[in-house]
Structure formats: structure tokens, C-alpha cells
């Protein structure tokens, strides 16, 4: 029996481990599938991490090292190159590595911190051929930053997610020509600063309301056909244009990797593709917690660390038998708010609610209702789907709460 098993040794897994340790848990094991700790941060060599946490701009590996160094100092055990194949509702974990073979661990509590994967070309059903040269932006990032290889020289990027923008700059710095970034939506999915410093600095055009409709080239990409889309996202025939290129990078969304969570029977939210959780980040199975990008896709690693600490602290409480679950207040959303995390509140404490909106709205008022009564409101000059929002509900606001609803009013 291991008190706490953490699946994933990226920023979420490490933060959760440290928080659990600081809250008195000593019997911890981190299982990491890669050959080192740090997760996807190891290939994110650009800066911009840690401004909230550390008040300075760090690169991905530097941010990861702050946590890894601490994990090593405290002697928190971890196994690398170890892939968790399955978990059960009884918290038995089956994993594989070269040294232990296939082995099982019975855990008292589990923290899910497996992160997310990129949406692939197949999921988009882009027509045309299937040549070499179509990569997800993250795969290209790994090739360039960790392996030292160029996946191509003339590049079109579909999707303006942050990884795509970062790779536009990165490929340009390594001598590639990035011809365009096409974004299906009328607004970018990435941060404004990245459009400025990754595209504008390098004169790379961002084509909003555009998509790639066809891939050309039999063995290697020879070009793509792009088109403007109408308000329903449908390509407009007479706007089609051929762009010659040898590479198509996709930055079209991230999906939490919850295959093993599903196999354990954990309830998964269809919008976040992550588990339903309470404010303690406990899933539908008591003692199983989730945090980081496996729970919902974050835009900043700083928020991942913060969320993972919540999960770590509460896993520690669970192990000690002190986790409070004395009430049950569901949180609903209206159409303009796509989702919240958590989706339930089970203790009357100050609670931070993270959420994402469905569209770009200006002059929006966020309102929290208990039944018909507004118990909280705040205004924002602009909200966008790419930027996670956060509000804090004070404990006293929850005194008489039965069912909360978060809405957005736009004037």
C-alpha cells in the first residue's frame, strides 16, 4: 500500500507532490512516463512561465527545475519511463517499465496529473493526401527543441493556439519561412502577447476565419489549399488559394488524456474532457483527485501549479481522514460560460472558481446566482475563450447556497 500515487511528473504532478508533502504525507510515489520529470515543459524552451508564481519570466525547463530540485531535495520518490496502463475504482494501479516489468500498486489516494495531448489531423478530417510533413505543433516542438531536427522549411500553421504561435517564431529563428497562420475562428486562440512577439515581430500573417481545406503532395507535403470560412465555419469556394509549402503544423486544440480515468469509471465532463471535480479537485471516486491539463486545459502553467497544490493538499487531508465533504452545491453555467472548475462545492470555505467563456465579449458582467438571487458580481472590460477567468467566492456567500449558477451578462 502506498499512501499517495501521483500519475504524471509534469508541473501538475510535481506541484501536487510537494503540496502533499508539505501537508504531512511522506509515502508518495510519482509515476512518470517520460525519461525525466517536467513533462511538456522540457520542450517549451521559450520564456514566459512563472510570472505569477515567481515574479520572473522563466523558460519551461527552468520552471520545471524549480519543482524538480525541490522534489529531489525532499527525496520524494519517482519512477521514470513508467507508463500507467490502468487504474481501478479501488485505486489499484497497473504500470509498466523496464525494471519492474508490469506491476501493481495499491494506493490510498491517487492524483491524476497526466496532462493532455494535441488534437491530430485525423480528428479534423482535412481532405487531400496523407504525406510526410503534417505535424502537430507539439511534435514539431519536440523535434526542433529536443532532437535538433527541422521538420520543414516552408511552413503553414493551422490554428492559432499558443503552441502554434510559439512554433511560428521558433521555426523562423531556425531559418524556416512561415508563410501564414490560419485560424478558423474570427479571433485567435492564443495570447495577444504571442501574436505580437511571435507573429508580428516576424511579419507572419495571421489569417482569421481561414482554414486549410486540402493537403497536397504524395510523399511529402507540396502545398495546402486554404480558404476563408463563413460565419458557420464553412469554407467559401471562391476564396480558395494554394500555398506552396513542405510542412503543415497543426495547433488546433488540446485534449485531456483521460483514457485511464475513464477505465476506472471516473465521471468525465463532456465540455472539459476532464473529470468532474469538487473544490478539493476530488473526482467522482473518493480519494482520486485530478489537476492540471488532465482536468482542463490551462493557458498558464502558473495556474496548473496552483491547482495541483489544491489537489495535493486535499489528497493529504483525505489520507488523514480529514477531507470535508459536508455539503453538496452543484455549480451550473449559462450558455456564455462554457464550463467551470470545480463543478461542485462540498465545503463552506473561500472557493476559487475557474471558468471559460464561449466567445469574445466586451463589457461583460459575471454574475453568480443562488437560485434567483445574485450573490456575487464583477465586471470585465473584455473576456475571451482563450483566457481562463477566475473569481473567488467567500465562505459566507456559501452559507445558504444550495445550487449555484454562473452567468455572463453583456451590454
Amino acid at each position, binding site marked *: 500500500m502506498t499512501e499517495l500515487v501521483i500519475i504524471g511528473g509534469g508541473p501538475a504532478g510535481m506541484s501536487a507532490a510537494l503540496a502533499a508533502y508539505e501537508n504531512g504525507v511522506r509515502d508518495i510515489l510519482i509515476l512518470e512516463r517520460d525519461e525525466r520529470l517536467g513533462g511538456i515543459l*522540457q520542450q517549451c*524552451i*521559450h*520564456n*514566459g512561465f512563472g*510570472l505569477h508564481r515567481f515574479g520572473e*519570466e522563466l*523558460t*519551461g*525547463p*527552468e520552471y520545471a*527545475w524549480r519543482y524538480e530540485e525541490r522534489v529531489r531535495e525532499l527525496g520524494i520518490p519517482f519512477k521514470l519511463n513508467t507508463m500507467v496502463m490502468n487504474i481501478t475504482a479501488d485505486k489499484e494501479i497497473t504500470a509498466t517499465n523496464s525494471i519492474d516489468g508490469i506491476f501493481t500498486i495499491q494506493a490510498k489516494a491517487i492524483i491524476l496529473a497526466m496532462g493532455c495531448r494535441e488534437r491530430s489531423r485525423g480528428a479534423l478530417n482535412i481532405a487531400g493526401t496523407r504525406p510526410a510533413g503534417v505535424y502537430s505543433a507539439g511534435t514539431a516542438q519536440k523535434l*526542433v*527543441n*529536443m*532532437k*535538433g531536427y527541422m521538420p520543414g522549411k516552408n511552413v503553414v500553421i493551422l490554428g492559432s493556439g499558443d503552441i502554434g504561435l510559439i512554433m511560428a517564431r*521558433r521555426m523562423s*529563428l*531556425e531559418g524556416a519561412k512561415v508563410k501564414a497562420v490560419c485560424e478558423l475562428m474570427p479571433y485567435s486562440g492564443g*495570447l*495577444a*502577447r504571442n*501574436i*505580437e*512577439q511571435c507573429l508580428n*515581430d516576424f511579419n507572419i500573417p495571421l489569417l482569421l476565419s481561414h482554414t486549410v481545406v486540402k493537403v497536397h503532395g504524395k510523399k511529402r507535403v507540396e502545398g495546402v489549399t486554404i480558404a476563408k470560412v463563413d460565419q458557420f465555419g464553412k469554407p467559401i469556394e471562391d476564396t480558395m488559394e494554394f500555398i506552396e509549402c513542405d510542412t503543415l503544423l497543426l495547433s488546433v486544440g488540446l485534449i485531456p488524456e483521460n483514457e485511464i480515468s475513464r477505465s476506472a469509471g471516473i465521471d468525465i465532463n463532456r465540455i472539459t474532457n476532464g473529470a468532474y471535480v469538487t473544490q478539493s479537485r476530488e473526482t467522482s471516486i473518493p480519494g482520486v483527485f485530478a489537476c492540471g491539463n488532465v482536468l482542463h486545459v490551462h*493557458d*498558464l502553467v502558473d495556474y496548473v501549479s496552483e491547482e495541483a497544490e489544491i489537489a495535493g493538499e486535499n489528497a493529504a487531508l483525505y489520507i488523514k481522514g480529514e477531507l470535508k465533504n459536508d455539503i453538496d452545491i452543484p455549480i451550473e453555467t449559462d450558455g456564455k460560460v462554457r464550463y467551470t472548475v470545480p463543478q461542485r462545492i462540498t465545503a463552506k470555505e473561500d472557493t476559487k472558481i475557474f471558468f471559460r467563456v464561449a466567445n469574445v465579449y466586451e463589457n461583460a458582467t459575471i454574475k453568480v446566482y443562488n437560485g434567483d438571487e445574485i450573490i456575487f458580481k464583477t465586471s470585465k472590460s473584455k473576456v475571451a475563450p482563450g*483566457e481562463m477567468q477566475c473569481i473567488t467566492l467567500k465562505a459566507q456567500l456559501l452559507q445558504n447556497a444550495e445550487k449555484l449558477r454562473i452567468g455572463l451578462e453583456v451590454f
Partner: protein
Amino acid sequence: MATRELICIICPKGCNLKAELDEDGKVLEVTGNTCKRGAEYAENECTNPMRTVTSTMRCSDGTVIPVKTTTPIPKGKIYECMNLINKGVVNLPVHIGDIVIADVFGSNIAVTENRT
């Protein structure tokens, strides 16, 4: 008088800034910023834009290692900086923060990862 519209890159907020400039290009006033650093950014961006460069360098064993400029360098020097980075070789082992090329356009190139 001229106005320049900018997007602040200091933090993930990405504030829309407006800088009022006089005939000599001197910044008179910055609006739209939500912090002091935003104003500084706008002023620099109009007079001498600066960028942090992150990249990788070849190591003595043939692998690559991530590096960065320890402070921002003039934006116009990015590609010159890249040429220096591309020509350099990092001798292992190195520790995070070790400077591998000194005096690069007023900054230094440091590794951002440990490597034995």
C-alpha cells in the same frame, strides 16, 4: 504628434497600449496599461524595442540544449544573435544558468537546463 498602438508582451494579459509620441519620436504619454511595467514597455517599444531570445545550442556530444539571453536584447539584433548561438558549442557538463556565450548585444547567453 503621432499615436502608436501596441500590445504589451510583458505578461499574459496582453494589454492594448496607446503611446503618444512627439515629432522626435519621444514618448509623451502611455495609456491602456494596467501596470507600471506596461508603460515602460511602451516607451521602450517606441524607442528601442527589446526581446529575449530563446533557442537551443549544439553540445559537444551532438545533442542540443536550450539557451536564452539573460536579458532582452535589441529586437533588430535577433538574427545576429541567432547566428552567434548557431555557431557556438556548449561543453558539457553545464548547470542551469551557466553562461555559455558572454557579451551578446549587452546580454549573455545562458543554458536553461542541467546536462551532465
